[in-house]
């Protein structure tokens, strides 16, 4: 039904802002005016998003245009390339743009994927415990604490990481032999992939638990009771019915967590990002102790040089990649949820 249709049926309506005492039109805040104002606000949000995308891409274009698809490839040292870009001559014709951003992209992927995979397992089991097994008294403490944890600012985690965890890992987990084995390529000082994944997991798990708990609670009672009536035990009921039904919510939780992990800059810059290095899985355990610098961290660490034109454009290229990946992420989450919808509850 069109809005006009609704408006026509409301009694006593005299048009926008009409001074009438009748119900449905209360002075300045008449329905028609409110509708237009709210519509304008909603459109404004859209306009801001579109404007932002256009702005970021127009700023980033010179960096992509100069490198082509090789922008996403590997080759050379990203930190040195950024230094050359920063020290470009003043003449626009001589600007340096050469960049091979693969180590940053790979670092983003490794840390995000690691944290989200560990996070899904953790949050799923924690949520099942909260919903199905935890005694109510424990739940009254557990749930508010989980929600509180979700609100801790990332820089706090970063401080704990750099003051406690990074030095500890550097001193106790990385032996001299391991340091020397890669000393010519990269320094192992404790700020590493594994610390990044660990703290990022702690950061994203609370919000994932909250979403999965809500979804498990929304599973129709009759379904689980039906299964229980057939003599199935609680664990199997939960696993085969509740978790199966809640799968769209688990996907939603993963998407949300991935989005947060992708954009996490400060904490990762403090605990993982001591070098623009692509950690190599072939190195075995050492891989976990190698440092890496995700895109968002590289952006925030170099923002000092924003006023140098080619350097600024390179930073905007980082921003553009982050923007596109988060858009693809929402899309992928939407597509992944489609076949699961028939199982019932929606997140």
């Amino acid at each position, binding site marked *: 039904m069109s809005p006009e249709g609704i408006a026509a049926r409301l009694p006593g309506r005299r048009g926008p802002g009409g001074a009438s005492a009748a119900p449905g039109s209360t002075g300045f805040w008449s329905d028609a005016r409110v509708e237009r104002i709210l519509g304008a606000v909603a459109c404004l949000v859209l306009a801001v998003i579109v404007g932002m995308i256009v702005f970021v891409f127009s700023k980033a274009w010179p960096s992509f245009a100069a490198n082509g698809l090789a922008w996403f490839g590997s080759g050379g040292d990203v*930190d040195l390339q950024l230094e050359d870009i920063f020290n470009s001559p003043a003449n626009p014709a001589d600007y340096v743009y050469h960049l091979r951003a693969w180590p940053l992209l790979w670092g983003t992927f490794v840390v995000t994927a690691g944290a989200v995979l560990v996070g899904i397992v953790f949050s799923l089991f924690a949520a099942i415990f909260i919903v199905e097994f935890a005694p109510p008294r424990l739940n009254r403490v557990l749930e508010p604490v989980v929600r509180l944890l979700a609100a801790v600012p990332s820089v706090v985690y970063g401080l704990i990481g750099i003051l406690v965890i990074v030095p500890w890992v550097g001193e106790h987990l990385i032996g001299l032999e391991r340091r020397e084995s890669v000393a010519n390529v990269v320094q192992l000082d404790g700020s590493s992939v594994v610390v990044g994944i660990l703290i990022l997991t702690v950061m994203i798990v609370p919000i994932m638990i909250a979403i999965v708990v809500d979804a498990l609670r929304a599973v129709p009672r009759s379904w689980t009771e039906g299964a229980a009536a057939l003599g199935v035990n609680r664990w199997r009921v939960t696993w085969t019915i509740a978790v199966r039904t809640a799968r769209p919510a688990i996907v939603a939780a993963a998407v949300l967590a991935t989005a947060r992990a992708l954009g996490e800059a400060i904490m990762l810059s403090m605990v993982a990002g001591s070098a623009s290095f692509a950690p190599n899985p072939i190195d075995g355990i050492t891989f976990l102790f190698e440092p890496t610098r995700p895109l968002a961290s590289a952006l925030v660490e170099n923002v*000092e040089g924003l006023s140098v034109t080619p350097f600024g454009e390179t930073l905007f290229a980082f921003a553009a990649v982050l923007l596109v990946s988060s858009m693809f992420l929402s899309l992928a989450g939407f597509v992944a949820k489609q076949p699961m919808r028939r199982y019932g509850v929606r997140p």
Partner: protein
Amino acid sequence: MTRSRSLAIALVAALVAATAPAATAATITMSGSTSIAPLATKLAKAFVKQPQYKGKVKFVILQGGSDIGITDVSRGRVTLGMSSRDPKAADPGGIVFNKIARDAVCVVSNPSNKIPSLSQTQVQDIFSGRVRSWSQVPGATASGPIDLVVRTAASGTQDAFQNIFMGQTLRVAGSATTKSSNGLQAQTIKSDPNAIGYASFHFTAGLHSIPYQGVPCTLRNAKSGQYAGSRNFYLVSRGTATGVAKAFINFARSNPTALSLIASNWVPLR
């Protein structure tokens, strides 16, 4: 650094509110080097207390790195840019670098690793990655690989280190750990016994400053000119400085109050 910028804005806004209520006051805006900002803030506080300028001058001090200061002043966005690096051939035309002080850049290591001295060649070997183990450095008490802890490209201290210690051709090894701020860099060196890095004298508390070419990195040695690792601090103006900006530069260069302020952590010109 946006955070330090807004912090500086808040600080200076408070300073302005406290010292200059007059609406007709002339305003000096500055932006640029994070290494100079602490000094510039102190000088500005002293300047507005001078009897002839009391209530007549306001300061707004932003940070952002030397190159930001130089770009800002060349475009007329600020009155004075702060630069902790020397003029480059590629700098925009029409700007004047006014030297106001000197600063010592120290090579620093973990306090447990009290290296007696390093020559320029040794510094270059260590930082370029030719020497990678502490066992190859005479006098070092640490053992195992050397961990280089340096600053990101946009840092003025990085630029100064490159020019003073490394020269035009050598570069810091790609394996080095790069940190985005003085604080993170110092923290990393403090917690890693194998670390070596560099810092402006102002930021060396809690670290071991390694004597360079046999000369300890102290203010006294930097003042006397014996310590070779020092750099210049500039206030950059668009054309020759005029009015209160000129007065402020002269104040920083020759006023006794300003000179003693500078001498607390930096090296005055006279």
